């Protein structure tokens, strides 16, 4: 009986110790995306260890799988085990800033000796600015580019007119374009088309959406023309990995697609080019990437600032970029020996960010994206472009403003 009581007490104590959530107040809790390979995970931990050795500041690195990162982060922020700093997806900056979850790091950034705002790719830095305050800094970035099948297209088009003209030279069973995706993806890629005909998602004052103006209609019409309405296009659109399987001539994609195609479709002969634009307009695209933010509740903001400055060093950014497959957000560090990757770096010079406005993700995923993929591009019941975009704009304005 005595033995049993001892065992029960020991187990209870162990459980209590296991559940203890108190942490050392001097250790930075840093949440980041978990690299896909064990080697990269180890390299990330070494990177952070080096910082601790260099500065004496202790850091607890918590690597979380990217797909569940936002959910886990939100849960943690609602509980007791809150991080002091973390990665944060670009379009979430405004949502976290508006409710005071993340801290205005302007004062920390002004003391950085090695990095200035001009060092970053144009527009990338601005993804962290909300209501004229700086809520984070970019670490990695990527942009969408045009992937083309070299067996179907010898020279990539540079203008919309050239792009559409390729259709006439395609053999039977092949179609011109795929890859805009459904829902949120369609909304994201739409921005690339919009920018390439001179449009933008918000108006100049930032007081309303502008994707339903004449540029928006033109961009949506271009996507519709690229897809076409012939049965082959429709069938190829429904096929998984139509580009990888050589069924379509073009798709939009980014750095992660290069690795995917090289691995899964080693015989695919493809090239990468800048996204074609309307005549007279410089090629542009959309962008994505990871920013790093500091949380308002953190008592270690100064030390977090030092860690961010360390992460922005070239040797660190190069490694971080390797982990995600994206590029360093600092322009002079982004270099590659691969011609295809260099095209993406060139495209980033003119790529535009999503609006830094709370609840934009919902507008993108619930209104704009489905309007394009399910209404305008529907082969069963295609809706009028202008009225579909007007409906989406009306809903978006009601939600955002």
């Amino acid at each position, binding site marked *: 009986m005595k033995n049993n009581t001892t065992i029960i007490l020991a187990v209870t104590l162990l459980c209590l110790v296991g559940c203890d959530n108190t942490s050392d107040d001097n250790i930075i809790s840093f949440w980041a995306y978990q690299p896909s390979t064990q080697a990269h995970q180890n390299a990330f931990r070494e990177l952070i260890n080096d910082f601790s050795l260099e500065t004496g500041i202790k850091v607890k690195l918590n690597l979380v799988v990217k797909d569940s990162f936002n959910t886990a982060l939100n849960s943690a922020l609602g509980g007791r085990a809150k991080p002091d700093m973390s990665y944060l997806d670009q379009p979430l900056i405004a949502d976290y800033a508006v409710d005071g979850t993340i801290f205005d790091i302007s004062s920390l950034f002004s003391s950085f000796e090695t990095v200035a705002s001009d060092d970053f790719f144009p527009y990338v830095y601005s993804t962290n600015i909300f209501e004229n305050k700086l809520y984070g800094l970019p670490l990695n970035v990527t942009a969408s580019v045009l992937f083309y099948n070299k067996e179907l297209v010898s020279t990539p088009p540079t203008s919309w007119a050239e792009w559409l003209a390729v259709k006439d030279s395609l053999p039977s069973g092949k179609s011109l374009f795929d890859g805009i995706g459904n829902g949120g993806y369609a909304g994201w890629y739409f921005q690339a088309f919009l920018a390439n005909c001179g449009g933008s998602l918000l108006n100049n004052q930032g007081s309303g959406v502008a994707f339903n103006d004449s540029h928006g209609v033109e961009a949506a019409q271009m996507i519709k023309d690229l897809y076409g309405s012939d049965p082959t296009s429709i069938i190829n659109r429904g096929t998984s990995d139509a580009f990888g399987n050589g069924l379509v001539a073009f798709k939009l994609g980014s750095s992660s697609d290069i690795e995917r195609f090289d691995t899964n479709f080693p015989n695919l002969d493809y090239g990468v080019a800048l996204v074609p634009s309307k005549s007279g307009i410089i090629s542009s695209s959309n962008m994505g990437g990871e920013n790093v933010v500091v949380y308002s509740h953190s008592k270690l903001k100064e030390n977090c600032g030092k860690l961010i400055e360390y992460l922005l060093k070239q040797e660190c950014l190069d490694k971080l970029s390797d982990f995600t497959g994206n590029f360093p957000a600092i322009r002079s560090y982004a270099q590659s020996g691969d011609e295809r990757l260099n095209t993406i770096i060139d495209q980033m010079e003119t790529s535009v960010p999503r609006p830094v406005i709370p609840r934009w993700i919902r507008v993108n995923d619930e209104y704009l994206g489905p309007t394009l993929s399910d209404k305008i591009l529907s082969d069963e019941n295609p809706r009028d472009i202008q009225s579909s975009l007007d409906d989406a704009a009306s809903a978006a304005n009601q*939600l955002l403003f």
Partner: protein
Amino acid sequence: MVVQGKNRQKKKTAIIGVLFISPLIIYFIVFQLTPIIMSFGISFTEWNWRTPPVFVGFNNYIELFTNRIIYPNFWKSLWVTIQYMLMSVPLSVVTTLIVSAMLNSKIKGEKFFKSAFFIPSVTAGVAISAIWMFLIDPTYGVVGAINRACGTNINLIGRTTTALPLMAIMAVWSGLGYNVLIMLSAMKNINPSLYEACEIDGGGTIRKFFHVTIPNVAPTILFLCVTSTIGSLQAFDQMYLMTGGGPDGSTTTFMLEIYNMIFSYQEVGTASAMSYILFAVILAITLMGQGFLPGQKERRLFARKVKNGKQLKAN
């Protein structure tokens, strides 16, 4: 003295019994009951997980029911879910009955067929979705082969008219083994003399099925109807994995919309309100189902008689 000893023994037995079931009770209270009560409270708040919840009364419920611009998918997803239920439940029950009756008719290789039908039930939903994605691909797989051979342009998952029925067929296929096992055990329990009596009366296979088998497995049919209905109202994984709710929201089920609301848009209060609306629908259907249970009418009459008898005695 003896009575006291018996009482003490009874108490001891009761305490030991409670101790044995206490882990389950603790689990139920901590991980099921508490979240259920908490989420009910959360449904009356506006909460994004990061900041403290703000009490908004019935606003979430009112907005969901009335604001079709901010919540464009609420009514649509409810309708999609009902359509899915109307397709999958009858199909599931009828298929289960047919397959079970065939297996119950002393067919050769009964064990093999039982195993074959049960395999999808123990296969991961992700694997099932991957297999079906390949089967229905309009260029590759079976549908692709039909398209190539016949010059057709069948794209089952890409059309609003076929995507949801396909999901229903998939659900029926993957749940068939489990349902057949339950139905088969009910059929095996039917007294063989009933079949003999039917045969003496000149009944053939079809008459035996409709006049002996069906009435005797009616409670099992009802059980399957209720569980399939609840399952179909909670349909999520196939849609999440295969269609993402498209095309044109034709496969956006209520559960998928709740998932989007909570994990994509962090509207925890709204998602909780939606969960309680779904809970109310499921509860209503379950209660309605219980009303159809065989013997319910007799049980109610008996209860009324007992009550009346007690009242007469009291008078």
